[in-house]
């Protein structure tokens, strides 16, 4: 609450109304050096090009949403960012994908280390069949974390807005949690690895509206510390939570813009048709 000021004009009621909080203006494009940069990136499954000649910057500490119809290549692009596509046979990548200036697919890049710094949250909550504590602690423990694990678990659960709900039941099975809680646990698990980037692939599609709202609030909080890339089918969700939105169609990046602009004045008629439901 901003302190009421003495009225400048006698009798003015202005001082009764608290001043509005200062909010950062909507970020513009290319305001900062990108954390992830795709340069003429093409990703093929065999002969099929799922992502074609795509150039896209992911700026730091913002939420970038990738939207588009099924099969447009948005999940393929997301999964390339921490090399999750390595597990699929026949994937070929050309062009460049850079993480902090280093080639993600370069010979010097360790995929395991990359995935530690670029974490992922999946469509369906997938906690390990272990306790809540172990779900969060396991990753750092096997990666040789030397600090206080209990503190790290608490910090991670707090960042995932789950601590207050589970602090008295850390030894309970994670599978006993609700779907929304399980998804926040998965976010806590990713956060515990102290990543720079969180990739989220349809993180709310298996959740009810209330759980979805909690995850969206959480994404809004997480962006102060992490760069978030969100793939979603839900355009309203992209509009609500992201700073920038990229629209993909048939493997091509059609348009990327500040979210408020893309949803009011899209530059490309294909984007216009898609966001207004006139697609196809």
């Amino acid at each position, binding site marked *: 609450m901003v302190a009421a000021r003495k009225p400048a004009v006698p009798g003015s009621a202005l001082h009764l109304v608290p001043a509005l909080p200062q909010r950062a203006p909507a970020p513009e494009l290319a305001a900062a050096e990108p954390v992830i940069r795709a340069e003429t990136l093409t990703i093929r499954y065999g002969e099929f090009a799922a992502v074609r000649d795509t150039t896209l910057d992911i700026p730091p500490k913002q939420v970038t949403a990738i939207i588009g119809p099924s099969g447009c290549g948005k999940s393929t692009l997301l999964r390339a960012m921490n090399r999750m596509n390595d597990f699929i046979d026949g994937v070929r990548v050309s062009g460049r994908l850079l993480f902090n200036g280093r080639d993600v697919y370069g010979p010097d890049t360790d995929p395991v280390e990359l995935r530690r710094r670029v974490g992922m949250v999946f469509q369906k909550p997938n906690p390990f069949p272990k306790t809540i504590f172990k779900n969060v602690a396991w990753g750092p423990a096997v990666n040789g974390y030397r600090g206080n694990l209990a503190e790290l678990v608490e910090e991670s659960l707090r960042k995932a807005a789950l601590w207050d709900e589970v602090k008295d039941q850390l030894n309970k099975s994670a599978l006993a949690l609700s779907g929304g809680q399980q998804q926040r646990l998965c976010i806590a698990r990713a956060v515990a690895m102290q990543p720079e980037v969180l990739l989220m692939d349809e993180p709310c599609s298996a959740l009810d509206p209330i759980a979805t709202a909690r995850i969206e609030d959480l994404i809004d909080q997480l962006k102060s510390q992490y760069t978030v890339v969100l793939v979603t089918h839900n*355009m309203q969700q992209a509009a609500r939570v992201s700073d920038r939105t990229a629209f993909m169609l048939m493997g091509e990046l059609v348009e990327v813009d500040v979210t408020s602009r893309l*949803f009011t004045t899209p530059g490309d008629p294909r984007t216009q048709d898609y966001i207004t439901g006139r697609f196809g």
Partner: protein
Amino acid sequence: MTAHFVNLLDDLRRRSLRMAAQVEDMLQECDEFVFRADEVLARRVAARDEEIDAEEVGVETEVIRLLALYQPVGRDLRLLAAILKVNSDLERVADCTVNIAERARHLEVQELANETEELKQLFPLVRRALRNAVQAYSAEDADVARRVIHDDGAIDATYGQIVRRVVAAAPRDSRHMAGLFDLLSIAKNLERVADHATNIAEDVIFLATGTIVRHSRE
């Protein structure tokens, strides 16, 4: 569901354009009858204003309903925003025509014959501004809208001439002071109609381009 929404949006747009056409008619009636001190005119314009008031509420209700139920984006969102804003300006233009008709009812036409030259010039200028604004709205034509904004300067200048004429005439012709005030009031309401036409033109530019040009010197 999208096809259904597109139909609803198109219906609403046409409803707003019909309202605009009705308001244009009201202004035309004022132009045709203002110098005849016509009693019937005032009653007819007032009756039409009640229809416009009801229509304004109807259009606004429908805009809010579509926003709530369909969460439109892109051009659809801009169109609904424009309809809502134009709706308010049209209702105020209708109010201005009522004011003009009220004043016209007892305008001392014969006695003020020498003082109405600029007012007679002002009517067609304002009618054209409103006509062009509504045409721009109908065609979503930003170029026509920009012309409306540009032409408002000539209307303001003509209104200024009327003010100066009334100020000059009042001391030497105090018997007709009430008539001069009526004349000034009609001119003021016409000038306000032109301002509303300018507002509509600005909304058309937003609709067509997504840029808010209000308070800017484009």
